[in-house]
Every structure is written in structure tokens, then in C-alpha cells.
């Protein structure tokens, strides 16, 4: 599964399971926020990615994140 900020790019090269990240230079933790907040976001999105691996899909799918 792919974690990417540029979902349109991931789609056009053919990724099937995608979880969005927050930016190109720092996909999983905004340096403007606290270390705790960064970890929280990273933990959440990696968790979504792990769940995506166990999810049956029929077409290219972008999994929703909450934070």
C-alpha cells in the first residue's frame, strides 16, 4: 500500500491502496506542531495504512483519515 501526499500521482502510476499524507517534505508530521501531535498523526495514518492492507477493494481506493 502507498502513503502519499500526491494522490493524483499515486493514482496515475497505478497504486491501488492509498492513504494520504500531509505534504511532500514531511508526509507524516507537521514540524509546526508539537512532537506529540506529530506522533499522534503519524500513528493514526500508519494505522489506517495497516487496516487498508486487510481491506478488500474492487478498484483504486483512497482510505479516509481523521487526523
Amino acid at each position: 500500500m502507498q502513503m502519499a501526499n500526491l494522490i493524483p500521482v499515486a493514482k496515475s502510476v497505478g497504486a491501488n491502496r492509498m492513504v494520504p499524507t500531509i505534504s511532500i517534505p514531511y508526509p507524516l508530521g507537521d514540524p509546526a506542531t508539537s512532537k506529540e501531535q506529530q506522533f499522534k498523526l503519524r500513528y493514526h495514518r500508519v494505522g489506517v495504512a495497516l487496516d487498508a492492507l486487510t481491506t478488500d477493494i474492487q478498484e483504486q481506493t483512497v482510505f479516509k483519515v481523521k487526523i
Partner: protein
Amino acid sequence: MKLELGNFFVQDIVFGAQTAYVEGILTINKEEALAVVKEDEHITEADLVIVKPGDMVRLVPVKEAIEPRHRIGGGPIFPGVTGDLMQAGNGRTLALKDCSVLVVGQHWGGFQDGLIDMGGEGAKYTYYSQLKNIVLVADTDEEFERYEQQKKNRALRWAGMRLAEYIGSCVKDMEPETVETYELAPVTKRTAEENALPNVVLVLQPQSQMEELGYNDLLYGWDCNRMVPTFMHPNEVIDGAMISGSFMPCSSKWSTYDFQNFPMIKRLYQEHGKTINFLGVIMSNLNVALEQKNRAALFVAQMAKSLGADAAVVAEEGYGNPDADFIACIVALEDAGVKTVGLTNECTGRDGASQPLVALDEKANAIVSCGNVSEMIILPPMETVIGELQSLARDGLSGGWNHDAILGSSVREDGSIIMENNAMFCGDQVVGWSTKTMVEF
């Protein structure tokens, strides 16, 4: 808004006792010019060299190109950058044509710097081999970035702008040889004839992807990373409101000279009142997060729609992830019913087999393409090198490399070079000069 560009056509450049322009001959007092360069104490060493089309000279690392100009009535040629903030695009500006100030690092280059061959087979790869150039070769004490691949090049770029202002000022009391007039009535005050024509906007996506300040293109001195798309009069762009930045592989970059002479803007002016009604420029930007890219596209489409645009031209300064901004913008415009043509270069790889843009959409069905950034170029040694040839290999120029198991170094022992088009100074000329295109083999 009415801009008069008063032109002086430089036929030759020489050094001499007094900086002056007389009947096509531009004379530069080198000492005086270098004193202007060294007004900034960060410039530690500096020299000036004159190069002309056909000279067997290789320039590298080239950081910037600027057209020497002078603003009649006072004021900086780059408001908010080289002087106080003021409205650009109105009144009269004088320009020394067919020449540019080129800024070259005496030793150190970076990702964003490029190469120019003034003569020989390499000359065709950049626009600047056709110009007579005053080359500023200099070094600085900016130790924090000396060995960094990404350089702001601030002292050198600003020195180039000061030099262009100094040289331009030698025609301040003279009548220009020709005058080009650029004038558009306010959007709601156009003639019936103009209003009957298809309404066209030009959308520009200048380079603004560094989140740290100091690397991006500036709009009236404002970092383009910190803006959302805005509506501008095209005269502002060609009269010094925009300056080039110091980020992005070089063949994709738009130099300050490119902004000052923006061929696509001038071409739209030519059609204005004949085949189109040129509404103006939507100045967008390029971003590093999908949400930012989509936000910019949303602003552009709304603005085009509110202005009543029937058609748009979208041009991007860059490739790679900026293609996502480019395609998102075209798709948003098409979805808003604005018929859009894209203007870009491609990255199809050294083998030509890669996907041309990293994002694609079938709505982007009208694209003019200006070249392949990763085309491989091999050039023979050059008699004279200005700057430092090793910078191409050593300093991480986007089209150079220090070591490759098969190809060796970009700079060979005999002084010949092997590089990607990526490092050709503003080589893809997406601003509109390009006579290159892409075809399938």
C-alpha cells in the same frame, strides 16, 4: 494601465572609461560597475566579462539573467526587491535589448544553477547564447550554504539586479530607438469589438515550492509560497513585479530576464483586439501539499469564471510534483467551462519511456510541450570556461553528477561534458521562446 517599453538595441559591449550607450555600443566602466556589485559586503570577489554569440565560452554555474533597465521618473526596476514598493507596469521603462546581465558563481553551484555554451553545438540549448552578455563572476561569504545543494544565492542574485540597474541607468536621459506600448483598458471598460472576442486569461504558476523563505520567485518582493492566486495586469509582470527564484532544476526555471520579456504575454497582447480579448494574468503558484495545490486550482478557476474567461493558457515553472498543480489547474478550469491550453515541458527520462507528466488527466487535451528535462547531452570541451566547470559534477546541479558507474563524471578529464538537459540554463523556455517540441519515436 499603460506601459511604454523604450528600447535601445545593443550591437556591441565594450569596457571603457565611462558607462554609456552611444549608437548601439554599450560601454561599461568596469571599476564603477564592480563598485556597485560590492555595495553588498557579502560579495568577496567579483569580476566582469563580456561574452557574445559564437564565442567558444562555457559558463557554469549560471544563477540568474537580468535585462538592464531604467525606470523613467525614478524608482527601482524591481519594486519591493531592489528598492521601495511601487506600482510596476505603468509609465515608461527603458531597456537595453539583445543583452543581459548573467550571474555566474566563481566556484560554487547548486541544484538550481545551469550551464550556457555561447558557441558550438551546445549553444542551441539555451536562449542566452543569442544575447550579448555582461557576465558577473563572483563569490560570497555565505558560508551557511557554500556546500549546500540548495542555495538561495541571495548576494549574487541581488548583485546582478543592482548591476542591471546601474547599466540601465546610462540611457536615462536618452530617447529610445523604438517604443512598444502595452495597454489594456480595465476589464469592464473594454470596447464592443474587444468584448465580442473570446476572453482569455493567462495563468502563471511560478516556482514557489520551498517553505523556507529566500528560495522562491518573488512578487513585489513577496514570497510566492505565501500567497494564494491573485489577478494581475500583464504589464506588472513584464515591468519588474516578478523576479526569479533559486529553486528547481534549471532548464525548467524562468529567469528574471524571462519574466521581463515574457513572450507568451507579448504574444497574447499581439492577438488582443484581433482574435482575443486578453483579460489579464492570474498569478498562481506551485505548492508541496495536495490541499494547497487544490486550493490554488480552486482560486484560479473561480477568478477565471468571475472574469468571464472563455479560454485560458496555463504555464508551469517546473516539473515533477508541480505537474500535479498544473493538471489540477487545467482540470478545474475545464470543469468551469474555460477552454484551456497548457504550456509545459516533460520528464520522459533518459530513455524517453517515462510518463511525460507525473499527473495526467484526459481533460488536459491541449498541451504545447517544450522539451524533455532528462534528455542526455554530450558536448566537447570549450576553449574558455567562466565560473568553475567542476561545479556541474561536484555541486549537485540538477543535470550533473559526480559519479556514475557507467557514465563516469559529468565533467570529463578533457573538459568535455555529459549532462541532462535539466542543467541547461532556462533551457526549456516554457515562457514561450521554445522551438523545441516533443514527439514519439
